Each structure stands twice: as C-alpha cells, then as structure tokens.
C-alpha cells in the first residue's frame, strides 16, 4: 500500500510517521538506533534565536501511562544549530521540520528567516505554546490574535511550508488553529503537551524542577484525538496529529479523527525503533480495518455536521 502523504507547498512525506519535536533531538542522537531515512519526517527540537538554558532538573517524572517533562525548551540557539546540526540534517533523505520558538513575534520571524535559506530545512513547525514573557506570561498559543501575528510574520519570512503547533491547554484550541490558517499557515500540528504536575512525597515538593510540566504519552491520547477531531472539521488545511501514539492502531485512530499524518514522541524513549515498526505494520493494519488506501482512512470517523453535537454533555 502506498503510504505517501502529499502536503501543501509540495511537501511530500514517504509515510505519515514523523518524529515529534523535542523527543528526537536534532537527529544524530538517534541515528545509531533508528534508520531515520525510513521515517516520514523529523521535527527537530525547538530552536530560538539565542540559546535557552531550560529549567532546573529533575526534568522528567513518570505518571500513569504518561510522562511529565519540564525541559523548558533548552536549545543551543540558531547559530549553533546552523553550525553544528544543520550539516548532519542535510545528509538525511527525509523531510526535516524546524520547530521554532521565541519570546516575541520578531524572534519567531528571525528563526524562520534564517532557516528559510538553510537547505536542510524542508518545513517549519511554529511552536506557540511556550511562555511569552513580554505579554505577561500569557502564551501566544492561548490567544488567537497573538497567534495570528506570529504566523503572519513567519509567513512573510518564508515560502517553505509552515505548520503551527496548537496547545491543548485552553477551552477551544480550534480558535487558534482558525486564526493561524487565516494568517497563512499551511498545516496545523496538534497537540503539544498538557500542563500537569506531580508531587514528590519524599521531598515534599513539586517533583519537577520547573514545578509544572507537560504531560505526554498514552494518558493524553483521548485529549489529543478530540482536539484533532475538532480542528479537522473546522479548518481546510491538513492536520498532523499526535499525543500518546504507541501502535499502528493508535495511528489509525488519529487518521480516522481527521489527521493526514502523525507525530510520535514519548514512546521513542522506550522503543527507539517503534516508529519503524509502525511504518512496517501500517499497510496491514489499514487493510485489516477495510481501508484500501491511507487517504481513505483520513477523517473516516468524522461526523457530517457540527450541529449534531449540540446539547450533548460529557
């Protein structure tokens, strides 16, 4: 079965499985363990104009079927990325997506502009769920207008395909998706981690150095599916779904909910080669559920209208 995914601006994935940002470094780390060229794509760790230090450790904590992290977007900054990481990425025969972060609209634009000229980078993922210190702690990702501004400036900075990554930590994430599509986003990726926390009973303190953290892994799959489903029925651009994917069946759930491709994160820590396993199994699993092609599965569980959900309470 052909697993190729055709995305806007001629972005073509060999298959719908992309390594999720922040869980796959800048590529070389996992190169010993995974045949990266077999993946549909790789979204690298978030890149800011200047280096970011990140949060104090501990930075990870296990929860039931989940993982809390408070990495705090540590990254070496744009110049170090260009000097040290871009050369390796240029050697890859797969789609490389630059995940970009910033404190201000201009910082996002600066990274996009610099990487627009970098041949290693095939597309951008604008991560607007990081704290915006200038706007008083409200993140860009929770404010459709701010998200619109970021996307508009990024759009001016590059003609490469751009997706915006949506935060689940708000009542109606689709309002942000709609705003950035309006501002020229070619795709939406969803979801980023869900804010959570754990208490270390022995130390009588928040378990993470960053106090709160982002929850990922199978625990958040239902939250992710619902947001992907809601966004896919509202925007006309492709949605890249993620959150807790562990198996080809999980991938199918996201496809049926409306995603055209998916990203895979936390499970890679346990099973570095799981993404390859999923790619291998996907045609059979699609066939087992009666799908002749990948495309046929996309949105197959979407209900026709928005109206029929009115009046339903959880």
């Amino acid at each position, binding site marked *: 079965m052909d697993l190729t995914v055709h995305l806007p601006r001629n972005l073509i994935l060999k298959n719908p499985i992309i390594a999720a940002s922040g869980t796959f470094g800048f590529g070389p*780390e996992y190169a010993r*363990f995974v045949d990266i060229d077999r993946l549909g794509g790789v979204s690298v760790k978030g890149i800011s104009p200047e280096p970011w230090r990140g949060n104090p*450790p501990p930075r*990870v904590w296990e*929860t039931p079927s989940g993982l809390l992290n408070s990495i705090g977007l540590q990254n070496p900054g744009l110049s170090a990325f260009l000097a040290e990481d871009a050369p390796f990425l240029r050697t890859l025969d797969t789609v490389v997506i630059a995940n970009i972060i910033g404190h201000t609209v201009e910082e996002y634009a600066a990274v996009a502009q610099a990487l627009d000229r970098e041949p290693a980078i095939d597309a951008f993922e604008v991560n607007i769920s990081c704290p915006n210190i200038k706007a008083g702690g409200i993140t860009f990702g929770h404010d459709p207008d701010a998200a619109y501004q970021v996307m508009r400036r990024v759009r001016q900075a590059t003609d490469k395909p751009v997706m915006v990554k949506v935060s689940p930590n708000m009542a109606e994430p689709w309002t942000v998706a709609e705003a950035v599509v309006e501002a020229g986003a070619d795709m939406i990726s969803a979801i980023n981690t869900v804010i959570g926390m754990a208490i270390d009973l022995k130390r009588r303190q928040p378990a993470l150095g960053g106090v709160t953290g982002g929850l990922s892994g199978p625990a958040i799959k239902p939250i992710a599916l619902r947001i992907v489903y809601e966004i896919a029925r509202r925007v006309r651009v492709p949605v890249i779904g993620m959150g807790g994917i562990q198996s080809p069946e999980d991938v199918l759930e996201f496809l049926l909910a409306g995603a055209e491709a998916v990203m895979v994160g*936390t499970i890679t*820590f346990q099973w570095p080669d799981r993404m390859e396993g999923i790619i291998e199994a996907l045609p059979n699993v699609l066939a087992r559920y009666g799908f002749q092609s990948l495309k046929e599965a996309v949105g197959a569980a979407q209900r026709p209208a928005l109206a029929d959900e009115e009046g339903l309470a959880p």
Partner: protein
Amino acid sequence: MAGAFKALIVTVRQVALDHVELIVEHERLRDATPGQFAHILTPGTLRRPVSFSRIDGGLGRAGLLVQVVGPGTAWIAARQVGETLDMLAPLGRGFAPPDPDRPWALVGGGVGIPPLFSAWERWGWRHRAPAHVILGARKAALVLMDADFRQQAIEPLVTTEDGSRGIMGTVVDPLRQWLSRNPDGQVMACGPNGMLARVSALTEGIAGPVQLALEQRMGCGIGACLACVVPSVPVGPDGPGYRRVCTEGPVFQREELAWSWI
C-alpha cells in the same frame, strides 16, 4: 542499526537486603567501559539507567547491581536466570583510565559502589601507585561489594553511619585524611549528591583528576531529550549551564560541575 537488544541473564544473586546483582550477556556489551550504563526496559513509561558493576569484555558479560527503590528496580530484581533484559547499552561517558603512577582513591556510597568496582577490576591490576578504596553505607547490612574488592586484591575501608561495620561516619573523613597524605592523588567517586558535593569541595586544588559519576532522572538515555541534565559551568548571571548525564556524563570532571546549584 544498533538498536535496543535483549541481553541474557546468566546469574542472579542477592547481595544485600533489597540489593540484587544480575550478570547479563550480549556481544554488544563487549566494549562497555566502567562508569557507563545500560538503559533498561521495565513496565513503566521510561527505561531505567543502571551502571555496570563488572565487565567481562571477552565474554560480553556485564553486572547490574540494583537496589530496589521502586517499581522499576523491583521488576529488574525479580528477573530470573534465562530471561532477558531489553536494553540500550553501553551508554554514556565512562571513567577515563587512571594514571597508573598517581595515588588513586575510589570513593563509593550505596549503589555508587558498583561502577567503582568495575573501574578497579579493569585498571587495578596495572596500577603502580598506591590505591585506596573507601565504601560508605548506612549500616552493615547494606555494605556493597566489599568482598569483591577483597577478591581483587584490595582491602576496602568501610564506613557506616551507625558504626555497625567499619568506621562510624561517612566516607568524607577517611577521604580528607587520604587527601592530606596524597595531595598529588587522583579520585573517582560515585554516590548520593550530598556525598559527591563534599568530595568535590574536599578535592579542590588537588593535583590529579577528580572524576565524579552522577545520577539524574532520564528520558531517552541517549542525548536527545535533554531531561537528564545537571548544573554545570559556565554559570551565568541567570544560572548555570546544563549538561546531560546520559551522554556528557555520567562521569564528569569536578571542574565541569556547578555544585552550588546541584
């Protein structure tokens, strides 16, 4: 691709209360170095890092000495001979070989002892200058690997906090004494952070290298996720830099670390 592999468990032995040592075998363990670790699959969401307690490169065998502190270590400790452990290994930066002509102190506390034993096993036989092993534990029943050291021809100095075995106290006093006698010495240490902080402070200015093996909660174990960091130099106005225990460590030079932040 050199992905995860399944190492065969060839020996399991209870070494102390709640402490089990497994010997595992796989050809990919042939070039393991003392101070490196295996990242082991357990039923949890994350793998569990465990240092090598001994390494037989020829046979591709390595020891894993685990203290049961939670579900992951309990699961590892309950494995049986003939089962396998799924692991990514060997990982991380191990100890740099000691200078055979410099006095050498190996200082271990609790489950910090196993990597030091593997260092001694590898390099002790060719060491020409004097060597000194100091092992700390809370109480007698928890002293680890002292017999193993003895078998490898060195008598370790044992300290226990309650005095139930060896010298009452911690490894700190014996180390201070050793340092005053050996200002040209080199040190390898592994143990709780509190102990390592003391070792770091005591060894400031000694002539030889001081290598400290650290622990930190890990995600990927291979350098990709930036979970396992420890505060390190340079320290800027807004805080320290961060280095990864899984790839830039577990063994650090004392000068690399920012102890006031750890």
